[in-house]
């Protein structure tokens, strides 16, 4: 396999064994797997190149080296009115300018994006949780969406494979709803987190506070340094201590010599040959020269992220697929999901006044789903949510000190009360009406139709957020926290940045887009392994699952290619 295929005369330098669209979390994985299996692979990325370490301009800056001391200025807000809730002066260069990349919100929906090599692998929160059969069987059991074509046993070895490679710190707990993985030692809990854990574990039989599972190295691994506990991850890590495409998968793909990475290349559509009933390549707009170029390959992996991948499919129309490539099911773009989140519940604690911590923790703690488990049924909603939490002592910013002068200064220098924050992430049901579509009249600067998002939470999700808030408040009060309050502002959908579902997997080609190997039912040499493949959303942060599905699909695709089946 390899070189030979690429050099047919007419397609010289334009032909590859494989094309991967997008270089974020899932695209980086596809690039690594395919190149390591010997495929000459072209990775197409719409954004600019970001070279690991060299292009992390803020990574080593002190707070006083930022003009606005890390705050967003009005000019920054004007460029990123949507993204700015998720970024600040230190990392905004890794988030798109909304002014340059507009989309239509039929109803409020935050589409948080990073258009660059590495995508959002640079800025993600690194929380890694496995799905379980509770999740894979959910659709079948309650009839929402379509049944997942896989079960936990199908993906478990791939979770192992991914975790061992990226490095996830965490602790085995033996929870059925949140399977254990291959973990590096966990990041320890501080004193207030321990306090919450002990109390919740004692006050409840149905729930447990566990160490967060994060892709931050607590031990060095494969030449990557262990975490230095600066908690500045979203600026890029000069130590390669957290997992990003730039520092890890793309590096290994590069080492094989089989990868061609082309930045500034917007994939506009997938080219389909009706005679072959195959995709033959993709059409790209070079963002610098504005030229359109076609690239060809035997297999294509779409990893542009949930909404972008669906929009590429919808834009790839042909006589065979007038409504978009592989869209005979009419499901492409539909069933968009995101986790529903609360702004959070906070509490303070009197005590442990002589305890503190040293070093800055880039992780968090977690309370896995405890609703609708083990035969217990919540009367208001189906499925469930998990809670992320973090405890710390109040610092100068949170302490509300009266007065001024020397006494104010003295107070500022003293660690304040312990406080804790709990925020829920709840499962969203797949709903055909939640969708993205292409607007026929409004175009972006490259003449591509604008993406239009239509998304609304249903009653199940709304019932869940009330419960998140009540449960969080109750747990904190029972654990002796005072001044327990919840923020009432409900962040708009999209805020969890876990958008998924727009090209779902399923057994039946009539109701789903992808089969159990993330292969398009309609077009067998196209694979989709970003969040669009998800048949349901679970309540866990999903990127680990995208990675495992990607590795699994690459394995299958290359075997099929070798067998001559595709």
């Amino acid at each position, binding site marked *: 396999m390899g070189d030979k295929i690429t050099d047919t005369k007419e397609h010289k330098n334009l032909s590859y064994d494989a094309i991967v669209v997008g270089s974020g979390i899932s695209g980086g994985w596809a690039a690594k797997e395919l190149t390591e299996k010997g495929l000459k692979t072209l990775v197409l990325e719409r954004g600019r190149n970001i070279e690991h370490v060299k292009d992390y301009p803020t990574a080593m800056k002190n707070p006083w080296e930022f003009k606005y001391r890390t705050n967003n200025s009005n000019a920054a807000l004007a460029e990123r009115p949507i993204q700015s809730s998720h970024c600040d002066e230190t990392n905004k260069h890794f988030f798109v300018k909304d002014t340059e990349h507009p989309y239509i919100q039929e109803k409020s929906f935050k589409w948080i994006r990073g258009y660059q090599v590495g995508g959002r692998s640079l800025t993600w929160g690194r929380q890694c949780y496995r799905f379980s059969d509770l999740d894979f069987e959910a659709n079948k059991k309650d009839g929402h969406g379509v049944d997942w074509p896989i079960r936990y046993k199908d993906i478990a070895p791939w979770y192992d494979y991914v975790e061992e490679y990226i490095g996830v710190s965490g602790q085995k707990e033996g929870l059925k709803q949140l399977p254990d993985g291959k973990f590096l030692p966990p990041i320890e809990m501080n*004193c207030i987190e321990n306090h919450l854990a002990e109390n919740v574990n004692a006050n409840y039989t149905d729930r447990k506070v566990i160490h967060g599972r994060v892709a931050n190295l607590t031990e060095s691994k494969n030449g990557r340094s262990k975490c230095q*506990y600066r*908690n500045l991850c979203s600026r890029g890590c000069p130590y390669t201590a957290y997992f990003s495409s730039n520092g890890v998968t793309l590096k290994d793909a590069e080492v094989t010599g089989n990868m061609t990475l082309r930045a500034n290349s917007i994939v506009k559509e997938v080219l389909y040959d009706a005679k072959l009933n195959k995709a033959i390549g993709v059409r790209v707009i070079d963002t610098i020269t504005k030229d359109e170029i076609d690239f060809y390959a035997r297999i294509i992996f779409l990893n542009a992220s949930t909404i972008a991948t669906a929009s590429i499919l919808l834009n790839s129309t042909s006589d065979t697929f007038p409504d978009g490539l592989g869209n005979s099911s009419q499901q492409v773009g539909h069933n968009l999901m995101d986790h529903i989140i609360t702004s959070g519940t906070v509490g303070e604690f009197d005590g442990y006044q002589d305890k503190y911590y040293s*070093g*800055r923790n880039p992780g968090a703690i977690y309370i896995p789903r405890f609703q609708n488990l083990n035969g217990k049924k919540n009367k208001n909603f189906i499925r469930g949510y998990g809670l992320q939490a973090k405890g710390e002592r109040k610092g100068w910013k949170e302490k509300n000190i009266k007065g*001024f002068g020397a006494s104010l200064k003295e107070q*500022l220098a*003293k660690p304040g009360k312990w406080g804790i924050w709990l925020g829920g992430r709840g499962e969203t049901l797949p709903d055909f009406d939640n969708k993205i579509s292409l607007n026929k009249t409004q175009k972006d600067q490259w003449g591509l139709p604008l993406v239009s998002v239509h998304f609304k939470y249903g009653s199940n999700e709304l019932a869940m957020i009330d419960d998140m808030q009540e449960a969080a408040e109750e747990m904190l009060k029972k654990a002796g926290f005072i001044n327990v309050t919840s923020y009432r502002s409900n962040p708009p959908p999209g805020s969890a940045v876990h958008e998924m579902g727009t090209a779902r997997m399923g057994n039946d080609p009539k109701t789903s887009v992808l089969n159990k190997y993330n292969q398009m039912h309609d077009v067998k040499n196209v694979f989709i392994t970003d969040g669009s493949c998800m048949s349901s959303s679970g309540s866990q942060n999903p990127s680990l699952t995208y990675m495992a599905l990607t590795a699994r699909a690459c394995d299958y695709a290359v075997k099929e290619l070798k067998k001559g089946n595709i």
Partner: protein
Amino acid sequence: MKRRTAIISMISASIGVTAASYIGWNYKQVTKEVKFNDLSNYKDMLADLVDLIIPETDSPGAKEVGVHYYVVLMITDAKGRKEQNNFINGLADFRDYCKDNYNTVYEKCSESDKIKVLNYFEEQGVQNGIMAKIRTKIFGKSFFRLLKELTIEGYCTSEVGATQLLAYEYVPGRYNAVITMNKNTKTWATK
């Protein structure tokens, strides 16, 4: 200043009934074109104010660190129009208040009178409860709250503040989740 305060208490008293018209009036005051030039008239006073809030002790004061420049920068570049107006109007109110109550310009007030004025403004600004929240939501943060928050932020994120008043570690290199403090343990400058 008195007029503005009066209006706000009227709103507080009548919210829900006829508040809309008052809000309408006052809203115009805070959303009008901002007169940034006015800020330069208050340069010295601001330098003085930040230093009263964070004076020199065994670490330098806010003025020496240049925190007043940071306050002006943030007001001009990083606050919404309402808060910009609140701040600039607040400076004028502050000056008026000194004149009305101490019969002199702010600069000539004694140190203890200045502190009294600051205390007065802080008391005025103490905002609790639902009305206060509504007020902040509609009108933005008050002059005094902005001044104090920005002074603290400017100081604590400066090299002097972070490394001399607070504890700052550039690259911690390890995480000790539980440590026992001694009497010299300081707040971490960053999280």
